[in-house]
């Protein structure tokens, strides 16, 4: 008979219980961290969206400076993109259509990053307009670093399992 001694059971249960508790605490701390990241990203995109929505004429001009799109498309995007950013940011904040919001924001930051890089390669000295007038005098490395940091945060949130579970 290969029986586990009874005396060891309480110890094992206690260890299991302690392990589960540690794991729960760790998960809880991680959840809080992800939620803070949600708030930071949402705040960033709401700010970026609002400053552009307030002055769509300037944003249309900023998009046009990239020399990629025809003027009417730049105007249409200048009206549309800020609101898309704001709504997606609210999606992150209130966890409504969460993964869709994350995907759209990730795609938009990738496109912005590629556009400013392409502009730099083509020798265009322009403002990306990502954060309205606040980013007007940012250097290319500052733009790139900010965009890559936001992209990294979005990807971390996207690949973390918690985005499928309620907080």
């Amino acid at each position: 008979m290969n029986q586990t001694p009874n005396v060891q059971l309480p110890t094992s249960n206690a260890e299991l219980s302690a392990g589960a508790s540690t794991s729960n605490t760790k998960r809880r701390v991680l959840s809080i961290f992800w939620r803070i990241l949600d708030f930071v990203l949402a705040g960033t995109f709401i700010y970026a969206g609002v400053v552009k929505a307030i002055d769509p004429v300037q944003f249309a001009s900023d998009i046009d400076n990239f020399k990629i799109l025809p003027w009417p498309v730049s105007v249409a995007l200048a009206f549309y993109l800020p609101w898309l950013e704001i709504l997606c940011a609210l999606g992150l904040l209130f966890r409504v259509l969460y993964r869709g919001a994350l995907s759209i924001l990730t795609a938009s930051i990738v496109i912005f990053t590629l556009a400013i890089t392409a502009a730099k390669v083509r020798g265009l000295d322009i403002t990306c307009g990502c954060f309205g007038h606040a980013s007007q005098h940012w250097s290319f490395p500052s733009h790139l670093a900010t965009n890559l940091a936001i992209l990294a945060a979005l990807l971390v949130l996207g690949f973390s399992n918690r985005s499928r579970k309620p907080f």
Partner: protein
Amino acid sequence: MAALALLPAAGEAIYFRDKISWRSAIAPSEMITVEQARGWGDTAIWVDARPDDEFASDHVPGAISLNEDRWNELLPPFLAVWVPGKKIVVYCSSLSCNASREVARRLRKEAQLSDVFVLEGGWEAWLKKNR
């Protein structure tokens, strides 16, 4: 979410319909041809929005250099020359450049000047008509 964003965007497009043209980056009322600008004679001040080296190599006779690279430095001398009632004609290299548009925008917004116009075709157009 993508479809929902169309609603406020459409509302904003209606609200800003008088402030932005869907056809051109510059509102037609702010554009001026070389012939029209020359017709203004001494009542117009020419502003060269190109970089310093291009201005140094050649420019419209009597033009004042005012570019974004040295905006804070060049604006005071320009304002010293400007008198109320004078029209301002801003130009940059060619039809595709943006410097004149930006300088014109800043003159209106930051210096609170009116009657600021962008020369259609820029320096290239002026050269064609004058040489």
